[in-house]
């Protein structure tokens, strides 16, 4: 049986939270440069210029791209045959976040309780951690730093099956429209469909974790993603909301079976930073 010491998890998470805040994967840079070159709006091109140059500066200086270094979200895919040693996996993830945010001079943006004192926890923990158990002896983590300009503008609704496709399109466009400049466009739109209320929200977040340019494997969903992208880009919002045709970089759908009575829909927005990374341990 394969064993893994959880201290390795801490070390990898510590590196990952810094890397996603400092550095830009090549495909993301290509994607943003394309937008910069193709955007017909002059104001939009100015915004894209700053977005691209900022990434070069952040990477060279090893500083975060944005002062909102996010709340950490971790998706854990654990093989049920893997034996973990050395302690508690959840605590090890939190330790990695704590060390990474201190070592990388990342902003600590987490408050301990949402309603009353809202006291900062001081180390950006806890992260939001989702566990998934599967056959095998692997451990895969997806680590994201979620900015809240975009999280603030996200939404969950449960639609009825009647006229569902039109209602879905209206809802996606409405969320992006209401978010306007606040979600820091060009955004990525994650759409979670089906399951229950909380499952839809989880799927929307997972959709944001997909790699650049990856379409849904089912052609009808892939087509719908492109149709929604076109609808969203007709709003005119553009980069930073300064006007233009690039309001969203992508729309991605994930779905799950659902009940005969409903179509749960979650729409989760991500800003142009797209800070996430996949780890294999």
């Amino acid at each position, binding site marked *: 049986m394969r064993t893994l010491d959880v201290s390795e998890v801490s070390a990898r998470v510590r590196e990952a939270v810094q890397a996603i805040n400092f550095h830009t994967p090549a495909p993301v840079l290509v994607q943003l440069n394309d937008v910069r070159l193709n955007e017909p*709006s002059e104001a*939009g091109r100015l915004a894209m210029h700053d977005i691209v*140059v900022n990434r070069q500066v952040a990477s060279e200086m090893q500083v975060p791209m944005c002062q909102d270094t996010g709340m950490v979200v971790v998706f854990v895919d654990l093989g049920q045959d893997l034996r973990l040693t050395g302690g508690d996996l959840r605590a090890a993830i939190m330790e990695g976040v704590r060390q990474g945010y201190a070592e990388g*001079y990342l902003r600590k943006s987490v408050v301990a309780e949402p309603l009353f004192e809202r006291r900062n926890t001081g180390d950006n923990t806890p992260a939001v951690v989702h566990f998934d158990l599967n056959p095998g002896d692997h451990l895969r983590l997806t680590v994201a730093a979620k900015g809240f300009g975009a999280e603030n503008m996200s939404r969950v609704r449960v639609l009825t099956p009647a006229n569902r496709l039109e209602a879905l399109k209206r809802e996606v466009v409405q969320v992006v429209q209401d978010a306007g400049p*606040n979600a820091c466009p060009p955004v990525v739109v994650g759409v979670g469909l089906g399951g229950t209320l909380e499952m839809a929200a989880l799927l929307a977040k997972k959709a944001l974790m997909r790699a650049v340019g990856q379409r849904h494997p089912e052609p009808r969903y892939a087509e719908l993603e492109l149709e929604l992208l076109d609808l969203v880009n007709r709003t005119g919002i553009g980069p930073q*909301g300064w006007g233009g045709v690039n309001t969203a970089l992508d729309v991605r759908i994930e779905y799950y079976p659902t009940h005969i009575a409903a179509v749960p829909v979650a729409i989760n927005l991500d800003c142009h930073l797209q800070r996430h990374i996949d780890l294999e341990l």
Partner: protein
Amino acid sequence: MAEAGLPLALSIPLTAQAAQSLRIGQRVQLSGVVYTARDAAHQRLAEALAAGEPLPIPLNDQVIYYVGPAPARPGQVIGPAGPTTAGRVDFFTPALLAHGLRGMIGKGKRSVAVRQAIVEHGAVYFVLVGGAAALISQHIRQSELVAYPDLGTEAIYRLRVEALLMVVANDAAGGDLYEAGQAQFRREVA
């Protein structure tokens, strides 16, 4: 909407005359002292104004920057310091403009009440690119804590900025970059 053209160099204190000459879409290179304040600091400034207490910062012809910087690495003036969403302080802004505040720097749309107060008092709202914090912080030469240290990243700092490049989003003539820019590129569904 103004053609972006070459940026206009402006310095702070920003006079009413200078502010009133600006138009949406215009690029401005701002130099001088700005004060940082976001949600929590605005709450306290509003409470002080309501109670008739003196404020910890001057407002007349001054500029407030909506920002909560990331920590500085040793040897750096400031950590990444990009704009935060301005709309969250809209509730407090008209009172500050009535007390002489001339300019604001942030990101995102302002409320109708703020836009009216900008026109009424001859003020201006500038925007920076959200998420361009590393680039922006290179134009910040000095940073000094002024008030409310208990608020951490939300405390008020006095920043000296040099040639910080921004765009006019709301002007004293009632213009709105977001409305004008978006109307130009909105397309009906075929």
